[in-house]
């Protein structure tokens, strides 16, 4: 059971990095700026090195993962608080693995993109309005690495209590990253973010404790309460209990995800956060919400999930369309990206709750793709802000002429966001749609309308920022620097690769989805007039 603790190592590497950054001695206040810069550069390079090392460990895990092996692999179980049956238990199925891999891929890109976000002064003359409030560079990067540890932990946890602790604890680094290093109304946004998340967390805590109480009453556990996921899935719960406990978990996840109408913290947070922070928040942290819906809401409370399915499908459709419509009307790039994410999270939740193989596999792949696309878009928005000192769409115009590479990268990222075939989001979005269609045709029709709205919000935004005559303020823009290219290009390469050949990722995801559906006792709808295979093309 306990082989080499790969998952613990993967989580420990960034934590070690954070500790190393934390112990870099500070300089006296009167130290010369050159010394300070050298010290900051050291912190940045260390952060990059540790995030890359984590990526290497995660790649090893992904390679060693056996597609046809048991559902949960790399399991580690140690007793943590025996009095309450709490375990330090880790393990990944295909769904958790791809999300961990996404986190590990995004982190180096975010570190590169955030290189100057905490600097007291931008070497090339930083545009006004982007100066963060507190200038401890090493703390900023240490917080990022701590967050990575928690992200890996929250996806890998197979003990509900451990999951809950990490779920709440990851708010802390994010709170400081927004509140201390953000821009604009950062403190308001940070508090709003924290309040919303705490409210959800509180409800979840109630459900977690109740789950423990019910497990201690069950004969399956021998009347010893436990938080182990593998045991809890077998604890029988009455449908009524399932409904209430489902809600406890679901509201916490819906706030995180974020699902309409629990979404209002997100645009403010996305607006106030630095672009790198926004990537971590929207691309990584919010995935815990949709991941939790799939892993915990469905597997622990299948009856509860089925009871609320129609309501949640409606909410997800509202998210898709409402997020898209409001995105069209935004004046600022960062808020626009926030609303795009709300629309895309609607697709993910829809895919999960239609409970078909295509819907759930599509939703899982959507989580990964959304991470890459959001990261690419936000990093490029960050590049625009760094050049212009503003994220208002009206302040740009004609960037393509002076910075063709920046515009080209932005266009490819935007096309990915509108799910152009050939790029990875198309695969996931179409799977979600087709998975929805087989069970709920009307819902699929509404969701497909989101496809049209996506073309409007992306291309209109692109037209206003990148096309048209070059504005005077834009004329002096540099094209992407090497550091910025290195942050974005690998993401775009991945988006293209998975779009053309998604099979390796789907092969990892599919068995876990199958296991989930068996656990939840649902099967795919059968085609009305199935056609059997004759040619090699498709059965």
């Amino acid at each position: 059971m306990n082989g080499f603790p790969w998952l613990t190592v993967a989580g420990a590497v960034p934590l070690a990095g954070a500790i190393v950054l934390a112990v870099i001695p500070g300089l006296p206040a009167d130290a010369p700026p050159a010394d300070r810069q050298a010290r900051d550069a050291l912190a940045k390079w260390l952060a990059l090195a540790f995030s890359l090392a984590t990526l290497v460990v995660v790649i090893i895990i992904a390679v060693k993962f056996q597609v046809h092996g048991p559902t949960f692999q790399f399991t580690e179980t140690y007793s943590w608080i025996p009095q309450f049956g709490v375990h330090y238990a880790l393990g990944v199925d295909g769904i958790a693995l791809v999300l961990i891999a996404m986190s590990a891929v995004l982190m180096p890109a975010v570190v590169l993109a955030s290189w100057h976000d905490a600097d007291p002064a931008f070497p090339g003359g930083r545009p006004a309005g982007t100066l963060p409030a507190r200038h401890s560079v090493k703390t900023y990067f240490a917080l990022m690495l701590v967050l990575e540890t928690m992200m890996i932990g929250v996806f890998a946890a197979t003990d509900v209590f451990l999951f809950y602790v990490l779920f709440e604890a990851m708010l802390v680094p994010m709170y400081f990253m927004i509140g201390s290093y953000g821009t604009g109304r950062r403190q308001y946004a940070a508090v709003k973010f924290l309040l919303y998340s705490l409210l959800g967390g509180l409800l979840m805590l109630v459900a977690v404790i109740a789950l423990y109480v019910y497990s201690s009453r069950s004969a399956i556990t021998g009347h010893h309460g436990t938080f182990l996921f593998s045991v809890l899935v077998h604890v029988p719960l009455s449908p009524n209990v399932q409904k209430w406990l489902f809600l406890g978990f679901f509201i916490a996840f819906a706030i995180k995800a974020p699902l309409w109408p629990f979404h209002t913290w997100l645009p403010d947070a996305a607006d106030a956060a630095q672009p790198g922070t926004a990537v971590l928040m929207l691309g990584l942290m919010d995935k815990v919400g949709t991941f939790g819906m799939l892993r915990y809401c469905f597997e622990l409370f299948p009856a509860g999930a089925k009871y609320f399915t129609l309501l949640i499908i409606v909410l997800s459709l509202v998210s898709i369309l409402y997020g898209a419509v409001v995105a069209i009307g935004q004046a600022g790039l960062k808020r626009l990206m926030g609303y795009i994410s709300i629309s895309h999270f609607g697709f993910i939740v829809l895919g999960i709750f239609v409970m078909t193989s295509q819907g759930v596999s599509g939703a899982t792949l959507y989580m990964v793709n959304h991470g890459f696309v959001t990261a690419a878009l936000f990093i490029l928005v960050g590049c625009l802000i760094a050049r212009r000192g503003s994220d208002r769409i009206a302040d740009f115009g004609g960037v393509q002429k002076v910075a063709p590479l920046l515009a080209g990268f932005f266009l490819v990222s935007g096309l990915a966001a509108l799910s152009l075939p050939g790029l990875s989001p198309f695969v996931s979005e179409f799977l979600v749609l087709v998975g929805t269609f087989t069970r709920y045709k009307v819902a699929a029709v509404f969701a497909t309308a989101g496809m049209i709205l996506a073309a409007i919000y992306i291309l209109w935004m692109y037209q206003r920022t990148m096309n048209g005559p070059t504005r005077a303020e834009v004329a002096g823009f540099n094209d992407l620097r090497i550091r910025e290219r290195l942050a974005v290009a690998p993401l775009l390469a991945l988006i293209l690769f998975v779009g053309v050949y998604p099979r390796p990722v789907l092969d990892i995801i599919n068995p876990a989805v199958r296991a989930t559906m068996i656990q939840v006792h649902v099967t795919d709808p059968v085609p009305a007039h199935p056609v059997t295979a004759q040619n090699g093309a498709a059965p």
Partner: protein
Amino acid sequence: MTGSAQALAAQATLSATGALKLSWLLLAFPLFGAAVLLLGGRRTDRWGHLLGVAMPVAAFVYGVIAFFTLLGESDRSRDLHLYSWIPVARFQVSVGLLTDQLSICFVLLITGVGSLIIIYSVGYLWHDADRRRFFGYMNLFVAAMLLLVLADNYLVLYVGWEGVGLASYLLIGFWQFKNSAAVAAKKAFVVNRVGDAGLSLAIMLMFAEFGTMSFTGVFRGVGSAGSGVTLALGLLLLLGACGKSAQVPLQSWLLDAMEGPTPVSALIHAATMVTAGVYLLVRSNPILALAPGARLAVAVVGTITLLVGGIIASAKDDIKKSLAGSTMSQIGYMTLGAGLGPAGYVFAIALLLSHGFYKAGLFLGAGSVMHGMNDEVNMRRYGGLSNVLPVTYVTFGLAYLAISGIPPFSGFFAKDPIIEADFGQHGAAGKVAGVCALIGAGITAFYMTRMMFMTWYGRRRWEEHAASGEPHETAEPLAGGSVQGAHGSAEEYHPHESPPVMTGPMVVLAIGSVGAGAFLIINHRLQKFLAPVVGAPPNTHGFFTAPGIAATALAVAGIALGWWIYGRVPVPATAPAGGPLTVAARKDLYGDALNESLLMRPGQWLTRLSVYFDNRDIDGLVNTIAAAVGGTSGRLRRMQTGFVRSYALSMLAGAAVLVALLLAVRL
């Protein structure tokens, strides 16, 4: 009909062998070209256009080899499985290429006409700083279009379908620094997306009904599906076709798309991409065969569009927009043909192929004129150019005869069978469509004659205009031989013939305009060739039947009317006020106004309302709650220091209360 459709669908598709095993090369060549040119950056500037030409030509050479290989086979349909693309449980989609009679016709059209237009572009865009990017996009287009016609299932077809949409977006917006070009590009993509949504819903319905999206699978399954399903499939496919092929009601983007460089208009918005909707309908013939309601809708859409396009083309003074209206109209004929069922498929494709030649020839001719006229597009400033651009004049004139339906040129052979087939249909609908198609033939001859007289004959209005010193409108900055910085200032026109790299392709296309129709129709060549895919027309007429004679007579009448208005008397240099229909036609028959009042305005209000709502109401409510919980909002802000410290405590306290309650009520 059901039986024959079933027989067709059941036609076994064999795995590719021999030369056809390499059909992936068709995609690989242009894809390689696009990748090198778009990723290679400025390093490839010097020789980029050579690669950009070589790749489509290489694809054409392979296409010819594949065509003759296919001719030699008794069973002319080959499937090449490439790899498993999206496998999720029952949803199994592979990337596979189907080389059959229908797809090889398109392969030859796309790579053949495409190569000619790309060669022409070398001259046309010689002075454009971004020429390399242009050839990269063109190669991307060729690759996507080939994927569209070679796909062996609907989802891979959809990849090509949206891929050509992307190429179209990039190329309409090639001069994106002009706001008008950027707006037109976006509009084209968004309007197309509406059609794409229809196609993607059709694909979802196929999977839900048949568990597959492959052509063979769907066509075999469709026989057992209910009439509701086939009708829905047919209408959704029609919606997709309307978007891509600029058919009413999704036609409005095509006229704006003329913002793109003229070779783009020739290749994408005349010869190939806009005909993809017709391809989709003809390819899906086993579905249409079982959905008479959908077929009727297809015919109605085609009939309306052929009239609408013709009327718009008759009123435009902008030569490219007039040709764009003409394209709409011609594709309307093809759509009408596809709506007639087996009686019309072959002729729709014959018209599509012939149209590819003569319309590309017309656009390249228009481009050649613009090239020599500082990118002037207003025909009222042309006139008397026949001596100045002799080669362009002759090639344009041959294409003119072809499109006008004068025997024995292409348009006559290709269009007349569709009109005849209309009258051959049972019921009143066919007769109505036939009459409309006849009227359309007259309109076609009229607007083309108008264009001929305005451009080539009469007074040299460009001399008078230069003397008057008014600024002229340029459609295409930096294109061709235009002098940079000359825009908007009064300068003289120095019309001149284009270089051989441009006239050469025009000559080849002119030969096609003359002969393609006769070649395809006489001896039923295309009909026999395509029979395994689309079936044979039930009964074939000779030529010069009553409808055929009527069509030719109407064409002559249209020419006479054109001469009466534009040849007999001098063309005014400024457009006369015109009657209500002319005014409406100049405004694209209010297509944009309709879209604006029905979709855009309500959409804008919805957006504004949602944004307002999102900023105020939901948030306001939540803030109020937050404030109530934390005291005042001012206190909320102060609370944040030390908040994290107290958070664990308050959380635990609250949780304890809730747990106590939970256990007390005993769920």
